[in-house]
């Protein structure tokens, strides 16, 4: 891989230093709090044992009322056995007389957590019930708590990094400006460029002085004596030197508002079904399970169906205006969702929330596509996927915790506040759209689906890559794994952690893989995207086959790891391939419409995943369902490689995608 340049090295070092310190700060806070958790859990578990002890002592006190001698009671072990069956965390229950056991059930422990309850009526005999708490139970609580605290730490870290991108934007932009100056002057493009304001001010000025001197000497020559600009040097910005810098600036400006809008929505993911189920359904005679699923279904349907329409619309009215519209609708939708008094009302506001999400998504994606070219598109889309994944990691975890504290309505209202902040930042920071170079693509909204789907290579990309990738992701990771983990006797929380691990892998690996794609592209003008997509699909398929391993939860872990690597390999190159496979359609319909169709079909894969997995599960059981999905995706990977690898993608595309 290419050696990192000075500026990348400095940015990487600074980010690494900040990351390490932030991680250490979070770890220290969690460690200090852990002590408080430890001090609280033991007494609470013991209090529960005391309550159970008093209950058993009450029952035994009935024998004292009938004046039965305590050492000749019948069925005490059975009574204790019943209690143990109900509360497996009690390792041993004893009836003691003057400290000596008369009757006992369970194994002897280390005696650290023992609750005692005297038996009324047997005071003279000093009879009491002693319940020993299983140390393994307390250990399990601590293990669970440790894992939960780890989740808290990861969430805090990711949200803090988003804040860092926001706060450090100015300083990072300085490094970007210097790099742009050096890169432009190194190509012989002596154009005035923005200079750093904080860091490297002297170097920026020295470079500008040198440039200005050359430009002045050039100007001072009589026009006919001036060397004509050409291959060697130029004084006009024909090679996009300013554009490269602007792209980073635009994407930096879009990042935080987009993240806030996504987070506002993801906050409610964890509790929305419960909230919906708690609302009166009015005249709708629906089962509680259906009621719980409706807000999610409505949201997804609106998002999926609106994609092709929104693509062209967003291009026509401009990215800034459409993003602001999305943020504004999100703000209203979240605020009114928090006020919903019936299911129908909630569904209406969730539909609006779905439309807002889709508008913001399309506008943000549009920013990426408008400001990247075929070389940088994969990296841009990787950053885009990264923002979505960070929000997916943080939103449900924070939302679940906040809902415990603030309630469902309070957390929805907080979502509205985040959307308001997103709107404000977008309004302040998002640059105005450049005037379109030509007329808006005709018929972008009408008939785009049929027109794009007439492109066979695009259909192959959809059916052999986009849909199978989503089917195996949603079908296994989000549907089968949670059920399988619980079936194995583990907890739903463990399933949640595995899903989170997948998301964390995506956040870390997607940009890294995108960098790899760019490096491969730079080498010998190669087109590595199809190879990355094929490899990613193959790994995703192998992930399903990993469930053949006989390691229980660890097999599921292997699946998640392989799926994470596979999807991170393919997700951005696959999206980037759309622009190259559909050049003709983009020229006529606009890239918004083409990407709208792509996202629509991709989302149909999302919907088909759990459905297919459920049918498989019903007919062939857990393991075979995983294997069948994996094998299916492997076949798709082979077919994809057969279609795309021999020929690669069509001839070189224009460096700047058509707006």
């Amino acid at each position, binding site marked *: 891989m290419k050696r990192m340049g000075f500026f990348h090295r400095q940015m990487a070092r600074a980010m690494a230093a900040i990351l390490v310190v932030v991680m250490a700060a979070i770890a220290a*806070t969690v460690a200090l709090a852990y002590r408080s958790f430890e001090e609280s859990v033991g007494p609470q578990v013991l209090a529960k044992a005391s309550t159970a002890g008093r209950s058993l002592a009450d029952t035994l006190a009935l024998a004292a009322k009938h004046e039965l001698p305590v050492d000749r009671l019948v069925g005490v072990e059975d009574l204790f056995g019943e209690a143990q069956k109900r509360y497996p965390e009690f390792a041993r229950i004893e009836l003691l007389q003057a400290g000596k056991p008369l009757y006992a059930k369970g194994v002897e422990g280390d005696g650290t957590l023992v609750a005692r309850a005297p038996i009324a009526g047997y005071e003279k005999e000093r009879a009491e019930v002693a319940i020993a708490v299983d140390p393994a139970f307390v250990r399990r609580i601590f293990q669970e708590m440790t894992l939960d605290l780890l989740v808290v730490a990861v969430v805090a870290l990711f949200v803090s990094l988003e804040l860092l991108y926001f706060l450090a934007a100015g300083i990072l932009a300085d490094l970007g400006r210097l790099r742009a100056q050096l890169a432009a002057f190194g190509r012989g493009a002596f154009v005035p460029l923005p200079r750093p304001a904080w860091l490297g001010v002297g170097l920026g000025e020295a470079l500008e002085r040198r440039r200005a001197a050359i430009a002045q000497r050039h100007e001072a020559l009589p026009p006919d004596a001036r060397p004509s600009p050409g291959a060697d040097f130029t004084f006009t910005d024909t090679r996009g030197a300013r554009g490269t810098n602007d792209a980073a600036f635009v994407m930096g400006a879009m990042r935080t508002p987009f993240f806030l809008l996504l987070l506002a929505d993801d906050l409610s993911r964890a509790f929305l079904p419960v909230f919906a189920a708690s609302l009166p359904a009015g005249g709708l005679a629906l089962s509680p399970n259906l009621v719980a699923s409706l807000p999610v279904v409505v949201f997804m349907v609106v998002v999926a169906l609106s994609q092709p329409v929104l693509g062209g619309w967003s291009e026509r009215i401009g990215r800034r205006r459409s993003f602001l519209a999305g943020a504004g609708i999100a703000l209203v939708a979240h605020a009114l969702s928090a006020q919903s008094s019936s299911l129908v009302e909630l569904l209406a506001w969730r539909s609006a929330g779905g439309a807002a999400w889709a508008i913001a998504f399309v506008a943000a994606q549009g920013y990426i596509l408008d400001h990247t070219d075929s070389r940088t598109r994969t990296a841009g889309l990787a950053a885009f996927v990264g923002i979505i994944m960070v929000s997916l990691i943080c939103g449900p975890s924070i939302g679940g915790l906040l809902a415990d504290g603030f309630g469902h309505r309070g957390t929805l209202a907080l979502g509205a506040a985040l959307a308001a902040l997103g709107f404000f930042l977008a309004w302040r920071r998002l640059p105005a759209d450049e005037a379109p170079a030509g007329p808006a693509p005709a018929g972008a909204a009408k008939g785009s689906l049929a027109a794009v789907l007439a492109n066979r290579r695009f259909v192959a990309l959809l059916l052999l890559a986009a849909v199978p990738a989503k089917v195996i992701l949603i079908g296994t990771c989000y549907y089968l794994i949670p059920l399988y983990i619980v079936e194995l006797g583990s907890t739903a929380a463990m399933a949640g952690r595995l899903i989170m691990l997948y998301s964390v892998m995506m956040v870390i690996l997607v940009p890294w893989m995108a960098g790899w794609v760019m490096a491969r592209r730079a080498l010998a003008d190669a087109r590595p995207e199809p190879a990355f997509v094929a490899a990613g699909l193959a790994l995703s398929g192998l992930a399903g086959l990993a469930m053949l391993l006989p390691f229980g939860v660890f097999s599921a872990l292997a699946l998640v790891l392989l799926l994470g690597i596979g999807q991170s390999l393919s997700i951005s190159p696959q999206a980037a391939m759309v622009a190259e496979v559909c050049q003709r359609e983009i020229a006529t319909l606009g890239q918004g419409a083409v990407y709208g169709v792509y996202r629509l079909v991709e989302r149909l894969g999302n919907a088909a995943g759990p459905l297919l997995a459920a049918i498989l599960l019903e007919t062939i059981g857990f393991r075979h369902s995983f294997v069948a999905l994996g094998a299916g995706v492997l076949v798709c990977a082979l077919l994809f490689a057969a279609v795309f690898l021999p020929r690669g993608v069509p001839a070189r595309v224009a460096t700047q995608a058509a707006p």
Partner: protein
Amino acid sequence: MPSLPRRLFWLAFWVVGFAVGMTGLLLYFKYQSVFTGLQRDRILLVAREIDEIAERDLSLGQDFWSIDTLPEVIERRRTAESFLQAIDVAGPDGRIAYASDMSRMGSSLPPEWMPLVTTAAPLAAFSPSRDEAVVSSPIRNSFGQVAGYTVVRYGRALEHEAMARFTREIVFACGVSWAGFTALLFALLMAMRRQIEAVFRQAADAVDGKAAVPESLAQEIGRAEGQFAQAERFLAAAADGSPR
């Protein structure tokens, strides 16, 4: 315009502060969830015990409204746990059949509780006010049908005390982490800034022809320098009138 060191300080301050504050807030809610969960388990144990007694008597053919053993058990259980405020056993319509407070017998559970109590879940837990929480569980007859509900009300004073104690501890922990790690991050950023500025200063001198090109920026400066030199040669040649 504030200086770069001041900007770096605020960057460290806000990033560390946000990370620590966010962690503290999430820990606060996590602690509350763990504590109330354990307490709810304890209350549920009482509710389930009453359920079992009622269910046993129902299975023997007794009428729900005339289970003789329940009133005594209810009173005993309520007095055994000091923070229990009341135990009610209500029919499916919410009318109270047995209660630790005899005056409540025959009255109804608050109507706003009914949707929560009659939920299909095996237990319901909610807080009608800041100082009171409720746990309820269904009583089922031999056919698995809901015959009534055990509703246990308890005070949240223990929870408030525990949360207040935890808040003090977490605020202290966050304060220490914030101060310490802000200082550490600021020091690190300043050290990095000094290093980078030294390289940039040397590079600026190199561009002005006063120093050698720093090794770490040799590639980038070298390319620009080459182009500058070439352009200057062309311009000089053009000024002299000689061909390029």
